[in-house]
Each structure stands twice: as C-alpha cells, then as structure tokens.
C-alpha cells in the first residue's frame, strides 16, 4: 500500500470502488457542505470536493475537505493548476495531509473564460502530467518539486482525470499512458453516455496494459431533464451525449424525466461493470447529491466494504 487512503484500500481489495463529488458553497455557509456529506456518508468510499469548478469562485476544496473529514467521510482534494503556482499547490498539499487528507485529484481545470472571473490571470505554472509527477515526488522521494527535503512527506493517493470522448480520439489512450508514466494511481473519467465509445477506449487501454497500472473509475452523471441532456450534448466541451440518450430523456413526461435519468445512470453502471479494467465508479450527481444513495443501491454497489 502506498498510502493510508481508504480508496486505495478498497481498490486493492478487489472491490468495485464508488466515489462521488460535492461542490462547495458559493459563500461561507459550512452547513451546506456538511449536509451534502451526510447524504453520502456510508454510501460511497470517498468524496471528491471540486476546486473552483467551471472557474467560479467557491469555498476552497481544502477547507471543505476538512469539514467532510471531521464528519467522518473520506474526502478527495481536487486541485487545479489554473489558480495556483507550484509553491501554493505544494503548500496546500502539506496542509491538507496534515489534516488527514490523503487522496487527491490532479487537474488542469476549466479555462477562466467559462467562469465569473474571466479577467483573472491564468496561472498554469505546471500541467496535469507535471502535477502528478510533483505529488509523486513529494510522496515517494520526500522532496519538493524544487528538490529540497520535506519533513514528514505527504503520502497522497494520486488521482487524475481522463476524457475518452475528447479529440483527437486516437491520442486519448496515449494521454492516459502519459499520466500513468507520471505516476498516477487512479483515474476518474469524464461522464460516460456513449458507452460504445468508452468500451472502444478501454480496448486501447487494455491493449497497453494501462488498466493494470492504475485503477480506472468510470464516471457517470444522472440527467435531471431532457434540457440538461441537450445542454450537455451541445454546450459542454468534450462531452459526448448520443442522440438516443437525448431522445430517451425527451420521450417521457416532464415529471418522469428525473426518474428516467436515474434509470439510465443505473443501467450504464450495470453495463460498465462488465467492462474489463473498470475498477469502480465515480458518480457525479451535480447539485443532486441526494440521489447518489439510490443510484449506488440500485446499481448493486451497497453495502460498501469496510477496510482497515
């Protein structure tokens, strides 16, 4: 075991892991993040906390991680390279680890032009691959990126994202291979709606043995409505929502759409369970955390294993 991460232990035990995510509040009300945590407690192995997602200012992932940790959950510190240089990133990693946070997700982040501070400096001192290298060096060599020794190095279980649906498709396996070579331990994928394409990507992943070098958690997001399906299809970069999914959502009465979205999500998980190399699921119920327990249960992923 590289770390004390519960997520690592669940994955190493051979169980399908389940993670979910919480978006922190756009303000200082800690009760919001605590309430989201309560909904997920015992239903998932670990909970990502987003870092200024869509480039909108929110309570920091670090601070929200601490609230979840205190509430007995296993938070995952998401961190983007967009907002901080390598000094600030390493400082937060030290602080988070000192608070008992041992799992993180290394991202480049949405571009500032999508958010409410498009005028902000776009830092990107390092990219996501270099970010993985930095956290691994901190953990395995006990050294800062700059080379100096760390007193009591942070032992982070290192995650990253992969989007099998972005272009160029033929580069997407090689992109994952680069993150593996950099030292990533686990991957959470972009939301999967085009299962055929995901399976094709996984074929490429298996052909290079990458599924044996990192754990791949398949990302799913339940749709609330046909409008959301259309929005994700047409407006979200790198998202692949097939027409039949939009049609299926639009084909039910409005009051039934949310149920249909949950059904699609559960069915996707059932099918993805059969894909060799899928080590678990990352359920991103955007501002809909209360539905996660139902999805996890109906997908046959309860009870969650206990690990020590």
């Amino acid at each position, binding site marked *: 075991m590289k770390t004390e991460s519960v997520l690592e232990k669940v994955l190493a035990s051979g169980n399908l892991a389940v993670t979910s995510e919480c978006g922190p509040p756009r303000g200082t009300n800690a009760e919001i993040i605590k309430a989201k945590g309560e909904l997920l407690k015992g239903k998932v192995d670990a909970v990502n906390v987003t870092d200024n997602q869509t480039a909108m200012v929110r309570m920091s992932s670090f601070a929200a991680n601490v609230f979840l940790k205190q509430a007995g959950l296993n938070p995952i510190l998401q961190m983007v*390279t*967009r907002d901080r240089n*390598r000094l600030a990133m390493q400082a937060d990693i030290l602080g988070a680890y000192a608070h008992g946070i041992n799992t993180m997700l290394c991202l*480049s*982040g*949405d*571009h500032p*032009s*999508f958010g409410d501070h498009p005028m902000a400096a*776009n830092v*990107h*001192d*390092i*990219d*996501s*691959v*270099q970010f993985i*290298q*930095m956290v691994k060096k901190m953990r395995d060599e006990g050294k800062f*990126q700059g080379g100096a020794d760390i007193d009591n190095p942070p032992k982070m279980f290192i995650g990253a*994202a*992969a*989007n099998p*649906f*972005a*272009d*160029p498709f033929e*580069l997407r396996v*090689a*992109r994952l*291979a*680069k993150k593996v*070579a*950099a030292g990533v331990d686990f991957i959470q994928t*972009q939301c999967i709606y085009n299962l055929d394409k995901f399976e094709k990507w996984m074929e490429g992943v298996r052909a290079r043995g990458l599924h044996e070098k990192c754990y791949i958690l398949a990302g799913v997001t339940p749709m609330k409505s046909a409008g959301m399906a259309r929005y994700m299809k047409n407006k979200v*970069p*790198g998202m692949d929502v097939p027409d039949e999914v939009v049609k299926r959502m639009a084909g039910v009465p409005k009051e039934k759409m949310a149920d249909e979205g949950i059904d699609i999500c559960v069915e996707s998980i059932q099918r993805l369970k059969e894909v060799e190399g899928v080590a678990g699921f990352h359920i991103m119920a955007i501002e809909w955390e209360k539905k996660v327990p139902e999805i996890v249960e109906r997908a046959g992923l309860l009870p969650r294993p206990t690990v020590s």
Partner: protein
Amino acid sequence: MITAERKPLEELIEYVRPYDRILLVGCNECVTVCAAGGRKEVGLLASALKMAFAKEGKTIDIKELTLERQCDPEYIEELVPHIEDVDAVMSMACGCGVQEIAKRFKNIPVFPAVNTKFMGASEQQGIWAERCQGCGDCLLGLTGGICPIARCSKHLMNGPCGGSTNGKCEISPDVDCVWQLIWDRLKALGMEDRYEEIIPAKDWRTAGGGGPRKIIREDLAE
C-alpha cells in the same frame, strides 16, 4: 514580428489634450508590417487628431516622423533636432520604442499610440495570430514545430485537455486546439513516439520569472 493595434482615438485625444505641439513618431519595422504604426498610420492619426481638436476649436501642431527603428538608440538620435520644438511625443511603435524615447528624452512626456499585443505571424491579409511567448527555452523541437506555450489556452505541455473538440479549443470554435495541430504534424512526420515523452515542469526563469531579462553577448558587447 511584434504585433500591435492602435489605441482608440478617444484615449489618444486625452493624452495629448494638454499640449499644443506634438511629435508623432512611427516605426518602420514590425508595426509597419502589421499596419498599426508605420508612416501611413502616422499620417492617418495626425489627421484624425487635428480634425478632432478642430471640432473643439483648438489648433494642434503635429509633426510627423517615422524612424527606421525605435528600439535602437542609434535611430532615436534622429529625433534630437525636432524635440526642442514640441511639448510631447506620441510613439506609434511597440512598447520597446516608447521606452527608448522616454529613456533618451528626460524632460519631455511620451505617450503610446498603440497597444503592443504579441509575437505573431500573419495568417492572412489583415489577420495576425500569436505564435511565440518568448519563454526563453524553446520547446518547438519537441512539439513538431508548433508551440503549446503560446498556443494552448492552458499552456499544456503534455497533450490536449478534455475540452478539445473537432480540432478546436474549448474556449472558442475560432481557436485551434494546438495539440490537435501538434499531433497531426507528428503523425505526418512519423514521429508519434515523440508524444509519449513527458515534457517536465518548465523553468519559468527564462520566461521572465527570474526578473527582467537581458542578453549579453560578450563577443559583441563593448
């Protein structure tokens, strides 16, 4: 070349409003090529300023002059015979030229007439695009001759982010995904393996992170 765009006339009017005699100085290098501050633009701006002030009932004396280069002290000397007769200088060169004039003439105000934009190339008539950020440690040998520092919206050095769609960047359908361009070129050259090499975290000192940059060529410096 260094590209530039002329500032809005309203801003320039306010700069020169307090003065009666202006020396308007163009540059025959980059800003001429990108049609922002060469001899022709000097003439156009001088006329526009005179007309704007004429409407207010004010006469302004504008002397027009275009130097071979404003980033070179040798050429700045050519302004000496004219500087006594004016109250202020407006430079149509890039920021380098404006500063050379300010350095040479301690007692006369100098104002920029253009916004200096980026180091770029001409894509077609009237369109220039960024190509280089002068990071001081060129990566082009690793990336198929196409720069991810200048042309990826996130400076990604190890491949495309998850927002690359149909060859375009997530920020706009008008922006090419540079990693799509790099990948297409590596493929065309049969150099796909090059992609698998991790480019390590960059040392930004050469890009300005180490403070203002300077080149000293011992063999040339006196």
